[in-house]
């Protein structure tokens, strides 16, 4: 049998980054092919190349033995490849029906036939058990409905290949089953479906074949039925379980570091669309690791702690006092700091100098009328540049010109300057080179020794296990287990992630 779509040796470079390197991908008619990998593995880039939203640097896209170049999404659509992107790419200002048929509106006498469009839209949505007013603006409906509309649009284009990028992220269990029913129906009609998700149970429920990417490279192509879940997680995270036997000499030593006083306690915390019934104790002077796959709720825990997501129930308390966290500044005043996951968009202010980036949070905490004098700013900046060994000629260099690792150190310095009781680090070592990795890890250890509590999220399990006193494993936005002491090995963490 011949694949309907085959990508051969695809590479994609952005300035300074290799997003994809020599990746192969093929899909056959009438199958659901799951494309898996951790954040930054290159899934989205591969989809964009496949669907004409980005041009590839090298490689071939082959349909029916002919190599094609897709300059635009329209070109790919004409070849029968239609895509539902991860972020709903619909138009909230247009009606549901217009969103479904934009570019393919039914016409009569050369004019758009609104009546036919309404009827066809209703018919199409009934397959998804959606009974809504198709002439109302899309913005009126929930994100889940918008997502289903986006998928319906992809289906309506009667594609040969339908690419669904994280289609279930915003759907509830029932809506997911409806979607799967439609996917099964399409599969039996011979449509090839590329399914991207981070919900592994869904992969096993619906997919026939799996391709795993890691760091922009292809790890392998497997038949779902022949790949146990543990093997899949291994492939995604990249370490073989056998190699990951417990290596730490004396895991219990670190328990001595802190006393029993709790810095922060989460009790039964839930937030809408985020974590569910989450309990956690972060003792003083300890580093707690959060592990789990992308979307498992790691980042959400940090967001709840920092006042970004509002709690729907439960409470977060610091030193026994319940905190009212309705915005990040509340958290900062309470002594909580967060280094966000996405350094580029949520962390650095690229055109400002290192000094200005460092003093930002401290100045915000002090209030703008207690202005830090330039001398004080300079002293502070110099202190941290020296302490964290930030590689820069002086403190006035714009942060945007530093390397990723050094940017990360500046952001760390920003929060250290506030002298928080608890510092949350969301993926502190993402996207920085190995040398800087080690430095940041060493820093985390020394911070704990100074009595600061840390909550660290990381997909690098080995790293997490190396410095954390306790690792909390999350899955589907719930806490699965807590591992500490002898149990705390990357093997156990990985098993917990895979099996729940």
């Amino acid at each position, binding site marked *: 049998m011949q694949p309907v779509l085959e990508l051969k040796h695809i590479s994609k470079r952005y300035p300074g980054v290799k997003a994809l390197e020599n990746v192969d991908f093929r899909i056959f008619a009438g199958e659901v092919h799951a494309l898996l990998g951790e954040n930054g593995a290159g899934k989205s880039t591969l989809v964009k190349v496949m669907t004409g939203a980005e041009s590839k640097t090298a490689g071939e896209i082959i349909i029916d033995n002919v190599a094609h170049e897709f300059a*635009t999404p329209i070109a790919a659509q004409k070849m029968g490849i239609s895509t539902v992107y*991860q*972020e*709903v*790419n619909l*138009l909230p*200002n*247009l009606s549901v029906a*217009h969103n479904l048929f*934009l570019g393919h509106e039914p016409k009569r006498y050369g004019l758009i036939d609104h009546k036919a469009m309404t009827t066809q839209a209703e018919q199409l949505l009934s397959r998804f058990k959606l009974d809504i007013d198709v002439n109302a603006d899309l913005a009126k409906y929930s994100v889940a409905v918008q997502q289903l509309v986006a998928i319906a649009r992809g289906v309506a284009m009667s594609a040969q290949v339908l690419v669904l990028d994280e289609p279930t992220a915003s759907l509830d269990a029932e809506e997911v089953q409806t979607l799967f029913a439609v996917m099964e129906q399409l599969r039996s009609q011979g449509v090839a479906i590329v399914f991207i998700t981070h919900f592994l149970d869904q992969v096993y429920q619906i997919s026939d074949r799996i391709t795993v990417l890691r760091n922009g490279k292809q790890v392998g192509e497997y038949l779902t039925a022949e790949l146990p879940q543990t093997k899949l997680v291994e492939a995604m995270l990249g370490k073989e379980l056998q190699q990951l036997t417990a290596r730490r000499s004396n895991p219990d030593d670190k328990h001595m570091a802190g006393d029993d006083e709790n810095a922060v306690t989460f009790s039964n915390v839930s937030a809408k669309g985020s974590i569910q019934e989450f309990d956690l104790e972060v003792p003083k002077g300890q580093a707690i690791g959060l592990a789990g796959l992308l979307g498992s709720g790691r980042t959400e825990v940090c967001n709840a702690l920092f006042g970004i997501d509002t709690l729907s129930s439960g409470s977060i308390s610091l030193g026994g006092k319940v905190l009212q966290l309705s915005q990040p500044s509340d958290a900062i005043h309470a002594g909580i700091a967060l280094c966000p996951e996405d350094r580029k968009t949520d962390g650095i202010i690229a055109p400002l100098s290192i000094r200005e980036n460092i003093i930002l949070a401290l100045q915000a905490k002090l209030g703008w009328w207690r202005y830090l004098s330039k001398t004080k700013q300079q002293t502070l900046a110099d202190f941290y540049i020296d302490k964290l060994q930030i590689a820069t000629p002086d403190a006035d260099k714009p942060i945007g010109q530093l390397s990723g690792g050094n940017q990360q150190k500046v952001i760390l310095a920003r929060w250290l300057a506030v002298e928080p009781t608890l510092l949350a680090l969301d993926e502190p070592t993402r996207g920085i080179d190995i040398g800087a990795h080690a430095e940041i890890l060493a820093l985390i250890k020394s911070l704990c020794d100074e009595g600061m509590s840390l909550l660290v999220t990381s997909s690098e399990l080995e790293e997490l296990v190396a410095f954390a006193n306790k690792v909390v494993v999350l899955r589907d936005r719930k806490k699965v287990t807590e591992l500490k002491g002898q149990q705390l090995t990357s093997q156990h963490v990985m098993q917990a992630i895979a099996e729940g």
Partner: protein
Amino acid sequence: MFKQRYLPLWITTSLLMVLFLIGSMQFDGFASSRVVMNLFSDNAFLMITAIGMTLVIISGGIDLSVGAVIALSGVATSVLITQYQWHPLAAFALILPAGTLFGALMGTIIYSYRLQPFIVTLAGMFLARGLATTLSEQSLEIDHPFYDFVADFGFELPGAAWLDLSTLIFASVFLLAILLMHYSRLGNNIYALGGNEHSAQLMGVPVKRTTITIYAASSFLATLAGIVFTFYTFSGYALAAVGVELDAIAAVVIGGTLLTGGRGFVAGTILGVLLMGVIQTYISFDGSLSSWWTKIVIGLLLFFFIVLQKGLNGKPAKTITSH
């Protein structure tokens, strides 16, 4: 069937009716078909321009060049007719495509260099105004049998009203614009562009072609408005129609179109121009008020409508954000 999306339209309509009613009660002869038809013929050039502006604003852009294009179109027409003895129809046949090309050029620049429409059309405005002044600094009077014919052309309506050519041209432009915006793919693409250009592109909207078409259409309509303006003034003058782009934008906003794009109606814009026209008529009937009161009232109305838009669309449209 009431929908929130039509709310600004209803408000403009009601304001228009209330003001007209007040005028009719206060002054004899206010509520006549003659006053109504004059509203159309006096404002035909503005309405034609504002229709173009509506398309641009719905697409999320702005066109500041239209006032200057009106002037350039008027001066060029006059120069061709008076100095080169062209027949007016021949002059129109040259000027309309030239004006359209001017807009297409602005659209191409906006798309190709990812520039702000504001700055590109501002440059276009200076360029057109400067060109017009270079062609003739003086006002050029047009004296041609065709213009006499145009002035006499029309249909008598009951109540000593007159349906003139300008109004007819406006009416056909209006009908075409309605067809374009609500019954053609291009219209949907324009709305899509104003909603979110990136999404529109991913959904297969030909962004380049649509952008160029929009600015070409706006300049075409401004050029046409310039010609209609010469029917009204029998002359072309480089300093005519100063600030008309702002009147057009005001009419579009008062007519319920969202300045940020994506929502609005051509019909609303016409209501907006009419509302501004009625205010003007009211003030001229009153006689004691300075004509600048028109600007004051329009200013207040604009404030009201902007706040209203904010209230109706205060919540940003929900979209999914990914992790």
